[in-house]
């Protein structure tokens, strides 16, 4: 199954991903993304893709 990947060093805590998909992403106290769920079923692909693409510093992506 496709999985979400995050570059924790690049994350700047903008929280766009949380707004787009708060069942997959959260931001911790230090402003770094937390992955709440990693596996992306095909039915969720579009929504999680959108969330990843809303990251202003391209710290998120989906890998097959």
């Amino acid at each position: 199954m496709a999985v979400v990947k995050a570059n924790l060093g690049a994350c700047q805590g903008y929280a766009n991903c949380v707004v787009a998909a708060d069942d997959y992403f959260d931001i911790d106290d230090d402003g770094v993304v937390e992955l709440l769920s990693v596996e992306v079923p095909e039915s969720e692909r579009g929504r999680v893709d959108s969330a990843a693409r809303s990251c202003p510093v391209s710290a998120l992506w989906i890998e097959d």
Partner: protein
Amino acid sequence: MPESTTVIVGASIGGVRTAQALRSEGYPGAIVLLGAEGELPYDKPPLSKSILAGGSTMAEITLLTTEQARELDLELRLGQPAVGLSTANRYVELADGTRVAFDNLVLATGARARPSPWGTPNGLHVIRTAADARALRRHFGTTDHLVIIGGGFIGAETAATAVELGMRVTLVDPEPVPMARVMGAEIGELFIDLHRRRGVDTRFGVGVESVHGEHGSFAIGLSDGSTLAADTVVVGIGAIPNDDWLESSGLEVSNGVVCDVYCRAIGHDNIYAVGDVCRFDNTRRGGSTRFEHWTNAVEQAVVVARNIARPDEKMRHEPVEYVWSDQYDWKIQTVGLAGSSTHTVIGEVTNKAKFAVCYPDEKGRLTGVVVVNWPKALVTARKAIALGVEYVEFAERLEAMTVSARTTVKETT
């Protein structure tokens, strides 16, 4: 043979994200992405920060590579601005006379820097494109004193970048508190202090009457009678939507392409707009608005892609605005509508800044929050405004978050 063709005019963040979102939505037709500039699509926020400072390369801010375009089966056509549109015959005309036919059209031509009223002598810069940022950076090497006209986000970020590169910086704005436009006068003062502490000479409430000279020998006459000498000048006085090319198209254009709540051009079911060029019916604000915000463009791209790919499940664009600005070690983020005189400040404003300012509407609901260096408060604010919570309740929740943070520190030491 594809069943339909979507042409996207403009290859900055709004246009690129629309193309990507169309494929995510399973759109089976052809997609043509037209870019006015010759270079690969790139992201603009870093232009006044890491690109200007030299910390990032163009490759690092590329939004779409040729290979990625190929993978998504996008036809990327760069280097020719669109100059005309026929809605009846469904084609876009490019500067070289080429006509590009469409079934669906997405207007994503963005905005350009408001031109300098003092001409464009060598050494006077605006910052909007990568070429602008490169040209300014070339002059930084021979700049001791930089004068920035305009204390908005672009001017303030450029000031921060230049100070960190060791330049002397003077920031001029006709408003006494430039940031008051977006966050009220009292909070705006905090941002003035931020720049003053870093050594920026702020000349606010003072207009610019004249700019003479060129790189290395500028003389800038101010309305208080003083004159500033400068090696380089940056003019950051806002942006103008790139909608002129649509003047004779028959589309309704009024400081942006006028759209409905679906970001669809009024009277045209197959034409949409995203990003800085889109003036949309904003139900949250109760009127039409045009935003020059990165996140708004990205959210509109999702909406427009959905509305093209799945017209039976149309999505409305009802954003909670979100803008950020990075200045020195302050990450400043504004959610919703901030700036009313009633507000509550929570957190640590001085020393190591980490605070939020909450603003209510007239009914006592939370309408806006300005957050500095406090990621958890940002997340909480973005969710809360979308849900429409009470202002007082939200302020208490943030206050509790500062208390629990202090308790945690105490326990671990």
